[in-house]
């Protein structure tokens, strides 16, 4: 039986080789060890040697042509023997059963599969690409230049073109899967050759050459991040002791550096009973939720797109930490101020800030792209609109969160924020009351500040810096008029949101505040 001579792997990195020259011709007698062809690899030109004796019966890959490693380039047989049908030939090397890792890139059954379509490098920084969509299906005729698939790179989505004519015989990398540059993503059967029994595309994907992207299925609920805003400094041991004994750490005075609570402080607190007030499950905070808000959906973790990853990486290099960007907008507050006065008339206490909180929450719901947070290598998409409020306290600042502020009435928001602020000043907030959410409202208007820039409270992705409401001369329809104006500056985490997203959000917010009746819908 004729045996195939296969394109050998001649260096640890070689994936394919070009036949530079055939040193033997069909019909030549060959002995083991004879050089039969010269091949150009990624490293150098080398000779391919025969490993068996026989007669060169057929050359499959001509001079100047490429062959992937493992593909037959010629057939060797006994004198006068006929060449078996190429497809039937290589029983041995194809599809290595236990697949040694090193063999995998070379192995994907290239021998009888025809022309490999490789993941191209489409940008200088591209290392891998994700198949977004196959534009041809198995069995389709393909001409050189045809778009075969759409691929997402680190920069953009591009089409992969065919460089050969033929029939799409097999898809190796399915939609939504990743492939490294240079890895085969499909095989074309040569012109005329019947597409060898089109196999179901993805199911046939070989072992380990590609790393299929983690399917974004089954979003796991993500646990609320640990306390961050206004965190209490405590040693790990002190934290554990406090938890074991149901002690509220924020009520213990720390004696360590920067007020760090340490073991001796906990011991002191326990012996002196300063912690009595914070006995386990003490008082329930009077959260006047006026109506049930139903089940709160957990945030959904989404994989970060290739582009987002690169943006976040690059911007993080320029602005280490949380790369902030800032957008400022002016809002006419006459209507919103009117709401406050209307409430007052019926003896309901509502502040401008309460209105802003509600508007900020509704705007969050309407611009979900900003309602996110970075968590490791995933983006958390919140399904709730929770808004933090910055509360100045004696020795710092804390940001309790008003949950579902988009669903709550102004009166409820008002009551809740007063309760939170009051307890914040007493340092009586529980960690879960000042964690979560994607955005905080920081209002320095009461101090007469016109405009300022706030720092994002991680892991949130945005903060609104709200200035004072003041009478200003503005131009409306060509006329100078006096309006109650307020400046809002949004700081955004550029790793997860972009300027346009922020602008859209501010436009939404401005609309809600200028037309507060929209808050009812």
């Amino acid at each position, binding site marked *: 039986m004729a045996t195939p001579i296969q394109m050998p792997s001649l260096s*640890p990195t070689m994936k394919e080789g070009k036949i530079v020259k055939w040193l033997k011709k069909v019909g030549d007698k060959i002995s083991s*060890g004879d050089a039969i062809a010269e091949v150009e690899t990624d490293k150098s030109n080398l000779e*391919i040697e025969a490993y068996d004796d026989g007669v060169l019966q057929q050359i499959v890959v001509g001079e100047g042509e490429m062959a992937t*490693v493992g593909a037959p380039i010629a057939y060797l047989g006994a004198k006068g023997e006929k060449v078996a049908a190429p497809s039937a030939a290589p029983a041995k090397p194809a599809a290595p059963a236990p697949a040694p890792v090193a063999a995998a890139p070379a192995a994907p059954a290239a021998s009888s599969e025809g022309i490999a379509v490789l993941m191209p490098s489409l940008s200088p920084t591209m290392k891998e690409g994700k198949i977004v969509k196959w534009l041809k299906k198995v069995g389709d005729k393909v001409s050189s230049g045809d778009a075969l698939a759409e691929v997402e790179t680190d920069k953009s989505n591009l089409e992969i073109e065919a460089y050969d004519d033929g029939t799409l015989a097999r898809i190796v990398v399915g939609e939504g899967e990743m492939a490294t540059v240079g890895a085969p993503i499909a095989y074309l059967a040569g012109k005329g050759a019947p597409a060898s029994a089109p196999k179901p595309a993805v199911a046939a994907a070989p072992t380990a050459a590609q790393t299929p992207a983690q399917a974004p299925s089954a979003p796991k609920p993500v646990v609320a991040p640990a306390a961050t805003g206004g965190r209490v400094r405590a040693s790990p041991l002190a934290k554990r002791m406090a938890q074991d004994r149901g002690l509220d750490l924020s009520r213990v005075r720390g004696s360590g550096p920067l007020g760090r609570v340490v073991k001796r402080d906990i011991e002191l607190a326990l012996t002196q009973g300063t912690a009595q007030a914070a006995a386990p499950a003490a008082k329930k905070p009077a959260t006047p939720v006026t109506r049930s808000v139903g089940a709160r959906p957990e945030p959904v973790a989404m994989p970060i797109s290739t582009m987002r990853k690169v943006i976040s990486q690059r911007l993080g290099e320029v602005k280490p930490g949380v790369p902030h960007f800032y957008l400022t907008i002016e809002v006419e507050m006459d209507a919103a101020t009117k709401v406050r006065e209307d409430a007052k008339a019926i003896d309901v206490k509502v502040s401008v800030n309460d209105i802003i909180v509600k508007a900020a929450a509704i705007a969050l719901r309407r611009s979900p792209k900003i309602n996110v947070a970075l968590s490791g290598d995933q983006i958390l998409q919140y399904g709730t609109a929770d808004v933090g409020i910055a509360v100045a306290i004696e020795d710092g600042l804390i940001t309790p969160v008003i949950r579902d502020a988009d669903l709550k009435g102004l009166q409820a928001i008002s009551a809740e924020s007063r309760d939170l602020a009051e307890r914040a000043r007493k340092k009586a907030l529980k960690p879960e009351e000042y964690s979560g959410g994607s955005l905080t409202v920081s209002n320095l208007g009461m101090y007469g500040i016109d405009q300022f820039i706030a720092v994002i409270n991680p892991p949130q992705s945005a903060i609104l810096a709200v200035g004072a409401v003041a009478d200003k001369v503005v131009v409306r329809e060509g006329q100078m008029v006096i309006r109650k104006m307020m400046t809002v500056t949004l700081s955004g985490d550029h790793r997860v949101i972009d300027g346009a997203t922020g602008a859209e959000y501010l436009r939404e917010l401005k609309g809600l505040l200028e037309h507060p009746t929209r808050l009812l819908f």
Partner: protein
Amino acid sequence: MASAYSKEQLLTMYRKMYLLRRFEERAGQQYGLGKIAGFCHLYIGQEAVAVGANEAIRSDDYMLSAYRDHGQPLARGSDAGMVMAELFGRGTGYSKGKGGSMHIFDIEHHFYGGYGIVGGQIPLAAGMAFASRYRNEDRVTVCFFGDAAANQGAFHETLNMAAKWKLPVIYICENNRYGMGTAIARTSAVPEIHKRASAYGIRGAAVDGMDVLKMYDAVKDAAAYCRAGNGPVLLEANTYRFRGHSMADPANYRTKQEVEDERKNDPLPKLRAYILAQKLATDADFEAIEDAEKAVVDAAVKFADESPEPSLDELWRDTIVEPGEEDVRPRERVLGVKVTQWPSYPSGQELKVTWDLEPREQAEQADRKAGLIR
């Protein structure tokens, strides 16, 4: 003239050289198919060196080598399938797939390893020979190394000690003329390696490493000299590799003509012609030998290919010897055969050390000579 070698001896040498050749050809092929990876240094062309040396020593003599180390263990009698499995990185290899091409160890056949740092095995060999003297055994150690290793400090430091303490070790420099791609003459003040023996006052000689019978004679003679307690021998086997340094080497540093010329010196046809001239075998006999060895190698490849990769548990074995842990006997582990040739050593209570490495009179004489004592 009648041959000085028996028919059986000659045919054994031919059979082994053919086995080495065929094994390496198939190893090269399997590397090309991605079954073997990493560095892979083939022995094609140098077969006469390992086979001639091995046939000239006893099976309980020690042998070790550098990283071009598939040939020597096969010459010693290692299982071809288990050597191939090691190259494949499979659990059935001699080192469970942990060593690969450069680290073949077969202690049952007294082959103490292939070493990957140039010249690194040279001091080890002296230590093994030291142990033989320490225990008063008449065993010799044969250590192979490449021409480039002769420029390592390890070579000079070791030859000095081996000479001073008269250690029974035969150093065989396999001079294939190139240290990777650099001709030995380009980097050596004295490229004739055997001449360096004179610096340490030991016996040194050049041998035609392309002639298995000349290798056999030289090593036979050296072994007798060592066993008689005369100290080490340095042999320079002038040989040639027909393939590149490793699989990734295009060998552009030498001309095609040079390789062609050397192929005319191929040790296999040379021995075959000798045997035919002596009328000790026929062409049919050779065909039968070659067919049998081809089958051995085909079976070795099949065995390796069908073997599983090592289990992940193996990661945590063989780094530290745990208390009470036995040494692994590969053929017992893999093939289930009872290994009987495993080396054993006298206990520290049985052993009586009688060797006086530096007799007092000798030391004092040296002191007198140096004017230290009168």
